[in-house]
């Protein structure tokens, strides 16, 4: 079994090597048959074999030399016309980065990229088709940039080629998806570089001042060093520090004092006083401290604002829905963009496709899997003429639907019109941040103190006013607090992502610290994707089991598939007759055995209703057994619940029925509630109700049906088995394999506040010492020069050290990601 280990922002699939077992040469999965083979190379499915053949034909087998079993399993085939919408020029044009009519550049996101073989193959695409001029992979972003000649190969062919070799692109026309990915802020890096350069050189030039008393250095050199310092400080003040001034100015115009306001003030005063001192030849100024502070603060912001480039947090239903749908028109079937769909359009839907809008079934057998919408795990059979709802996934044959509502006002999508989605959570978190609250009062208190000092010195010694208050303003810059917050959050982001929790931005960490109520979704969150099967009743003989197996094998119904999975691989029996009665069950005859699989009424031919919660019944002649399908709860669930129960209020919101209520009640102790059959809007309202009572709510969900609740909650965490797959819009993504670590991760996030408080106290002590000295007018450049970098470095070391120590104490520290060897 492949094991996925997550490290930083990539998912690396590690496959265990069983030397004795038969592993697929392409993807490393265990082969169930030895029939699919080329020479001595075995394959698990025809898909994998096909990829090998293509690569072999084009001399690209180096792919298999770089890593063993580098491929992705091809067992799930992709429908041949899935990407037909790319033939639509309007859609294709939107994806092009550049085109001159022939030469075209396109960038595609490939979630499947995971190792160096992937990179090698994708960068040798030109060998597969000469019309591909160049292909280059950005491994961190999992994006391939392909330059091709449009007159010789179409975008659809390229996407299909990528899909055939196992890298199906994820195509989205959603602008927000793209913006997020280009978040690498070059401007800030340049600013940091310039600040670092100037800071280092200014420190060097200032050494003579530190090491000698004022009159020691020859006057000509003192002037030279000071003037050079001033020249070097100019780019720091005007370029590197510019964002502090602009932010402060923006804040002032909105009549708020943000954290940048006192910093801008401090920088302004420091620069002004230094300019004056150097100009008059009375001193060396504080340019070294100023550039140092700018450098450290920029570094802190870069550490804190680091994002996970390959993960997207802002996807709404549009990312889940198809880009285009096949519409039946008098002129034939055409591919049409989702937003161009109108009421009364007739659309075709294939297996595994999503219903784009609420519609009526016109033709075909609709078996709709609503698991992502409602959380209900069993597919629903819908007859011709009845309504199917947007977001459901068709399983089975082709379906023809007529839309009765436009996409945006369908039952599910109308959830996004709810007021919860209009508030900007990022902004909200920013406003609620401790930094914001402190900065409001900090500036006011500081200005008050300045006024008092000025008044005092006005009576005692008026000549000291200017030096005293400028020194005060310089020393009392809140950069210590800012550094404590940015470095703690930055390091916590890193540590939490090592533990499998990927957080959207630093402000979410702070919000996590205030949580007192956790609400869980059931299906997919508390349960695993796999189910547990059980058969109770009469015992079947081995021969009878073979017959049941064969009977169930021919049906595509999920229950039949479950029975096949439960019985395991068996010998096939001879069937004389086999018939499926839609909505009832299957009847088959083998030899002189009569087999019935289906509802209680169908199987036992009585009018008795299904008495217990069995999924279906199986009857072979006179023997009757009930077949149960129960979702399997995560192994770690009891331990996690017990741990969390001691610290938080817990609730459950399930879209499913209350079949497992008794099991769950044992897990949810205390005052938490268990609610079943919850619609997406019910979930949202429940969360809003808790918040009205003053609770800070953490929502854990996984599907579109939780989207409203995730948005409404203070922090919404999505549980995902693959962090690169679709997840509804949320604040953080937790790797499903790390579910057991949830209590520890929450503790770690909470510890961030203590660390910040602790470091803040330290920096306040520094500030008090500094302020006392400067209020007395005794601050010399030497003390200032030592005090400021010393406090800065203490803070940086303390925050990163303490948070790493915390992670270690919660046993969350993970070493570097395990790469494939």
């Amino acid at each position, binding site marked *: 079994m492949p094991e996925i280990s997550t490290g930083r922002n990539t998912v690396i699939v590690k496959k265990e090597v069983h030397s004795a077992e038969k592993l697929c040469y392409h993807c490393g999965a265990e082969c169930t048959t030895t029939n699919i083979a080329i020479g001595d190379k075995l394959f698990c499915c025809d898909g994998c074999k096909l990829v090998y053949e293509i690569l072999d034909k084009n001399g690209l087998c180096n792919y298999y030399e*770089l890593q063993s079993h580098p491929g992705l399993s091809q067992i799930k085939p992709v429908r041949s016309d899935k990407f037909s919408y790319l033939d639509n020029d309007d859609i294709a044009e939107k994806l092009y980065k550049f085109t001159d009519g022939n030469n075209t550049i396109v960038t595609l996101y490939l979630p499947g990229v995971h190792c160096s073989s992937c990179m090698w193959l994708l960068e040798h695409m030109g060998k597969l088709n000469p019309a591909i001029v160049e292909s280059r992979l950005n491994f*961190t972003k999992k994006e391939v940039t392909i330059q091709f000649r449009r007159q010789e190969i179409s975008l659809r062919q390229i996407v299909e080629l990528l899909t055939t070799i196992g890298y199906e692109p994820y195509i989205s026309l959603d602008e927000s998806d793209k913006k997020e990915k280009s978040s*690498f802020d070059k401007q800030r890096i340049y600013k940091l570089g310039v600040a670092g*350069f100037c800071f280092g050189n200014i420190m060097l030039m200032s050494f003579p001042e530190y090491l000698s008393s004022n009159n020691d250095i020859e006057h000509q050199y003192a002037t*030279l060093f000071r003037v050079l310092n001033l020249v070097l400080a100019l780019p720091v003040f005007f370029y590197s520090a510019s964002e502090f001034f602009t932010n402060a100015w923006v804040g002032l115009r909105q009549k708020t004092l943000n954290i940048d306001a006192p910093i801008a003030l401090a920088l302004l005063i420091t620069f002004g006083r230094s300019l004056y001192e150097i100009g008059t030849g009375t001193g060396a100024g504080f340019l070294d401290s100023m550039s140092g502070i700018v450098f450290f603060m920029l570094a802190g912001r870069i550490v804190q604002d680091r994002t996970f480039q390959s993960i997207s947090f802002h996807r709404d239903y549009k990312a889940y829905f198809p880009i285009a749908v096949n519409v039946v028109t008098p002129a034939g079937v055409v591919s049409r963009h989702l937003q161009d769909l109108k009421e009364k359009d007739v659309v075709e839907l294939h297996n595994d496709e999503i219903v784009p809008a609420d519609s009526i079934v016109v033709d075909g057998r609709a078996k709709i899997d609503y698991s992502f919408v409602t959380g209900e795990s069993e597919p629903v059979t819908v007859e011709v003429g009845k309504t199917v709802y947007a977001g459901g996934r068709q399983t089975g044959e082709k379906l023809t639907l007529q839309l009765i509502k436009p996409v945006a006002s369908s039952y599910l999508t109308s959830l996004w019109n709810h007021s919860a989605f209009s508030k900007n959570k990022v902004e909200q978190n920013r406003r609620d941040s401790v930094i914001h609250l402190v900065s409001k009062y900090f500036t006011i208190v500081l200005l008050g103190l300045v006024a008092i000092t000025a008044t005092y010195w006005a009576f005692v010694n008026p000549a000291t006013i200017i030096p005293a208050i400028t020194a005060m303003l310089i020393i009392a810059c809140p950069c210590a607090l800012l550094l404590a917050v940015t470095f703690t959050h930055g390091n916590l982001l890193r540590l939490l992502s090592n533990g499998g929790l990927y957080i959207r931005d630093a402000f979410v960490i702070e919000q996590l610290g205030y949580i007192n109520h956790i609400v869980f979704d059931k299906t997919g969150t508390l349960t695993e994707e796999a189910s547990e099967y059980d058969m109770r009743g009469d015992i079947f003989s081995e021969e009878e089991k073979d017959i049941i197996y064969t009977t169930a094998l021919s049906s595509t119904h999920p229950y039949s598939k479950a029975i096949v999975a439960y019985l395991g691989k068996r010998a096939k029996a001879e069937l004389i007759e086999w018939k499926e009665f839609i909505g009832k069950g299957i009847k088959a005859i083998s030899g002189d055995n009569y087999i019935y699989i289906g509802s209680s009424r169908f199987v036992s031919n009585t009018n008795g209703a299904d008495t217990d919660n069995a999924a279906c019944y199986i009857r072979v002649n006179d023997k009757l057994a009930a077949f149960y399908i129960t979702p399997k709860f995560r192994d770690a669930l009891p331990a996690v619940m017990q741990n969390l129960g001691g610290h938080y209020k817990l609730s459950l919101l399930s879209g499913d029925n209350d079949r497992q209520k008794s099991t769950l009640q044992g897990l949810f102790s205390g005052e938490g509630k268990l609610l079943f059959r919850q619609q997406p809007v019910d979930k949202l309202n429940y969360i809003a109700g808790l918040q009205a009572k003053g609770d800070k709510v953490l929502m854990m969900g996984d599907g579109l049906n939780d989207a409203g609740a995730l948005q409404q909650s203070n922090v919404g965490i999505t549980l995902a088995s693959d962090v690169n797959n679709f997840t509804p819009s949320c604040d953080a993504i937790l790797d499903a394999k790390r579910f057991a670590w949830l209590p520890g991760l929450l503790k770690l996030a909470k510890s961030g506040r203590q660390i910040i408080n602790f470091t803040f106290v330290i920096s306040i002590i520094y500030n008090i010492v500094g302020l006392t000295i400067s209020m007395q007018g005794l601050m010399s450049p030497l003390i200032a020069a030592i005090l400021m970098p010393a406090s800065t470095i203490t803070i940086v070391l303390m925050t990163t050290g303490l948070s790493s120590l915390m992670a270690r104490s919660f046993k969350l520290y993970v070493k570097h990601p395990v790469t494939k060897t």
Partner: protein
Amino acid sequence: MSALYLLVLASIAVAAIFLFAFIWSVRSNQFEDQEGSAMRMLHDNETPQINNRKI
């Protein structure tokens, strides 16, 4: 002692070279994909088609 002028100038010049090297490296996207480059350098046993450079 006037050698000091020269030395100071030289030291700043050397530091400036590093600053420009840094700016150039950021500008040429060298920090865009840090994992990829590490892997790519192990793949050069064939003619890299990207730059059409012959080995």
